């Protein structure tokens, strides 16, 4: 323990703690831009400067550890003057497009400028000089707005280990960019969008499809169907005035109907379908000596990652399409037939917590319906903007169910949105497939929670099934390196690209707080517990689709509509 004084208050705290963290104990939140919990300290913005008695200069409190007897002033005149000037300098080199900026209500720079009392910018404003990076189908970068805090670089390198963006050039010419400035669409970017989640300003955002979706809704000749991923219902409320963790499934369905969607279904249904196919595939691989471990395939960020970085492991990846892309072709075939709707007139929209889903929908192989299977992907954030634009009072909406045909779902489908959820859902059904008995205790706790890698051994009637779960691509790498080395003991591995799973996706309300992601996940586990069906194979709509249309898991029709192939992309 180290005892020091912060603003005259004595603080005792563990050795190795930064002054910034120690200050919280003295009830002081030191301003910061480049520091973000969950990422290594960087020391670039210098806003967290504090005065330390006896030192000639101020110190960056995120970088400096406490030492015994240290006397720290966190908001002395010198400190306040420095912080204001730093913000002034950043503002002088920041476009004043705040009215139209994506981050209008939540920009950290804007907030700090106000809070730190910056009332004028005495430096001349610099003109925007950089072109937007619009090479990616999922993510758009604007170097003009970038304040070079480096959070995106750190999340891309240290958390996701994708490492496609970095600082280039030096001094005032420094920008965050890609190899040879080729753009995100031309490098190994997985489109996970975690860079968006950590950006303090509006320098990174999703490629919006809001206008296209409005146009479809406004077009009377179009039949617009919508699906919503499991994780949306646990986070959408945050954007619309509800407290974190509020389950908004019913209000979400109601809001979508109010927006004018012709059919409101639910991705949770196709998550159940994914389980039917994927659990069957697992059983087949295990019993027939297929390639093991089988690895899940529902996270498109993860899929692009494996295609670039571990193409040799593609045979391990389940051939199942993701729930979004299972729903896609079914909407334009099964639903079109059932509803006697011309599939050419169907516009299929998905609401996803994810930016990588935008890329996934555009994969050339995702056209098994004879059309582009999913036409537009909206993030949680984009949907919330549409709801606001339409003036819908979301909080007071009544709960409505999704349409039953492709909207009824089990608890297994809903927990897809949390890390470990696919694994748990798959085991519930695989148990039945192998043993023809129902798993008694449906809560498989060892695969839940926020540990980076979780493992469990499940007794399937005498057969010991070893499973592992990783969320965040850096964690995934650890399991994959084992597989590559032939040392993986597992039968089945779940990988989600984003920390926390889909509830922490790049399209969710802006936050990099893992605890918040845990809260969202818990919301899904709570819904699971409360639902009448908790196993995918119990879902009546699932039984019906196999009866009426697909026949059986891994059958011919399933194979055609619900399974896919991958592309070994390699490295640039």
């Amino acid at each position: 323990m180290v005892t020091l004084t912060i603003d005259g208050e004595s603080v005792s705290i563990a050795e190795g703690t930064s002054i910034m963290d120690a200050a919280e104990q003295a009830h002081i939140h030191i301003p910061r831009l480049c520091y973000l919990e969950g990422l290594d300290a960087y020391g670039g913005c210098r806003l967290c400067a504090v005065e330390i008695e006896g030192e000639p200069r101020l110190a960056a409190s995120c970088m400096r550890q406490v030492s015994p007897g240290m006397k720290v002033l966190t908001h002395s005149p010198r400190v306040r003057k420095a912080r204001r000037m730093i913000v002034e300098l950043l503002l002088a080199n920041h476009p004043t497009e705040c009215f139209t900026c994506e981050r209008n209500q939540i920009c950290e720079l804007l907030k700090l400028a106000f809070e730190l009392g910056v009332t004028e910018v005495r430096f001349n404003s610099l003109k925007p000089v950089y072109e937007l990076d619009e090479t990616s189908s999922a993510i758009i970068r604007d170097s003009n707005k970038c304040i070079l805090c480096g959070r995106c670089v750190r999340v891309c390198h240290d958390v996701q280990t994708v490492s496609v963006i970095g600082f280039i050039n030096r001094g005032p010419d420094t920008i965050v960019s890609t190899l040879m400035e080729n753009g995100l669409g031309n490098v190994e970017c997985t489109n996970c969008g975690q860079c968006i989640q950590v950006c303090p300003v509006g320098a990174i955002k999703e490629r919006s499809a809001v206008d296209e979706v409005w146009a479809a809704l406004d077009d009377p000749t179009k039949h617009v169907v919508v699906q919503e991923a499991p994780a949306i219902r646990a986070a959408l409320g945050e954007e619309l005035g509800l407290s974190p963790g509020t389950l908004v499934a019913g209000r979400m369905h109601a809001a979508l109907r109010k927006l004018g969607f012709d059919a409101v279904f639910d991705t949770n249904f196709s998550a159940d379908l994914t389980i039917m196919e994927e659990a069957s595939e697992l059983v087949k691989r295990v019993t027939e000596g297929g390639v093991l471990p089988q690895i899940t395939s529902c996270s498109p960020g993860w899929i692009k990652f494996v295609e670039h970085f571990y193409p040799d492991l593609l045979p391990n990846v389940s051939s199942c399409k993701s729930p979004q892309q299972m729903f896609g072709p079914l909407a334009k075939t099964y639903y079109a037939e059932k509803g006697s709707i011309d599939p050419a007139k169907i516009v299929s929209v998905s609401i996803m917590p994810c930016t990588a889903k935008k890329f996934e929908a555009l994969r050339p192989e995702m056209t098994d319906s004879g059309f582009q299977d999913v036409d537009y992907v909206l993030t949680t954030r984009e949907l919330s903007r549409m709801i606001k634009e339409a003036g819908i009072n979301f909080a007071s909406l009544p709960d409505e169910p999704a349409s039953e045909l492709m909207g009824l779902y089990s608890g297994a489908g809903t927990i897809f949105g949390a890390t470990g959820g696919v694994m748990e859902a798959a085991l519930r059904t695989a148990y039945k497939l192998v043993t023809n008995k129902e798993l008694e205790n449906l809560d498989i706790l060892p695969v839940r929670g926020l540990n980076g890698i979780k493992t469990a051994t499940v007794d399937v009637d005498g057969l010991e099934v070893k499973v592992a779960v990783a969320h965040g691509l850096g964690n995934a790498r650890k399991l994959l390196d084992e597989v590559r080395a032939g040392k993986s003991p597992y039968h089945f591995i779940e990988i989600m690209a984003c920390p926390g799973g889909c509830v922490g996706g790049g399209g969710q309300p802006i936050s990099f707080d893992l605890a918040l992601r845990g809260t969202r996940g818990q919301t899904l586990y709570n819904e699971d517990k409360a639902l009448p069906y908790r196993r995918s194979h119990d879902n009546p709509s699932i039984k019906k689709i196999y009866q009426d249309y697909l026949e059986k898991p891994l059958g011919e029709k399933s194979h055609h509509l619900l399974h896919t192939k991958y592309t070994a992309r390699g490295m640039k």
Partner: protein
Amino acid sequence: MEKILTKNIDKPKASDIEVYLAGGGYQALPKALSLKPEGVISEVKKSKLVGRGGAAFPVGLKWDFTRKESTQPRFIVCNADEGEPGTFKDRVILKNDPHLLIEAIIIAGYAIGADKGFIYIRGEYYDEIEAVNNAIQQAKQKGYLGSNILSSDFSFDIQVYRGVGAYICGEETSLIQSMEGNRPCPDDRPPFPTQSGFMDKPTALNNVETLANIPSIINRGGDWYSGIGSPDSPGTKLFCLSGQVNKPGLYELPLGITLGELIENYGSGVNGKLKAVLPGGVSSRLLTDPEVKLDYKDVARAGSMLGSASVIVINQDTSIVDVARNTVEFFTHESCGKCSICREGTRQAREILTRMANGNGSAGEIDLLLELGEVMYDTACCGLGQAAMNVPTSAITLFRNEFEQKVR
């Protein structure tokens, strides 16, 4: 006066090991090896030698800190990334007396308990890199480098790292990042390189000129060395005299000589009339008093910094606003871009001073520059950002009317 650092440089084939040996070279090494490493450090401490690269940190203390770290291996790195405008001293040793440096690095390695040393030389020093590499080969052949040096238990090797064009790499943490293959952006200290340096191991970084003193200190004792020059800052110093002076050049002189003596007696006077002097390159503050004694304490007392002793003379015909603009242009170009304050601050200062130099400044901008200088000193991570506004702010203090004529 007896020369310590430049005694060999004018000899024919000075860089050859035979010439170095004939002049008494490689005699300090066996003497050092006959002492305990702690004994070597204590001799260096007695000498009161401080770093000649700019920061003037006591060398014995730095070695002591490094040695006392329990982590192994440890490294000695010679900083030969000379780049401060006005500085051209290390290149002379590198090119004309590389064995002096090599002998020093071996001794330093022995003292701190390192088995590997590096010399980081700026990339533009083509001839110097060649001279040093040749000298390393010669030293290896003679058994001064390699395993069991001079039949002792001590084994040591030296490798040259070639810089590729970045002033910031002269900053010690940045130099380490550069060697590690990272973007060479400085780190906050603590931890210091002596605790966690190259590859996170304890690393002593010393400037070329600093190290070049070591063989003499070992040969003749720390007490002998501390008796030279001024008692506060003993030893000789390589003064780099440049700018508007009649005889620019490199002069080895005892610390404590006055500015006027240096310019008149060695530089043959100012080319024109003296206006101001930068005693430690463009990172230092302007001085106008020729009576200032050039040692670390006196220059500091006069409000500037001796630094690398790169004395740049400015005459009365020169616009001080233009001088300020030029130096800030340099720092803008060389800022690494990591700290917002330095990246944006140098850029804005350059913009303001460029306008001022053209007579288009605004009145409030003079004080804005002073405030910017204050905040940059206070908050920038490294010496570059902290010192980048020294010339403009000292110019405003000394010659405010010149700035006022340039603003509306």
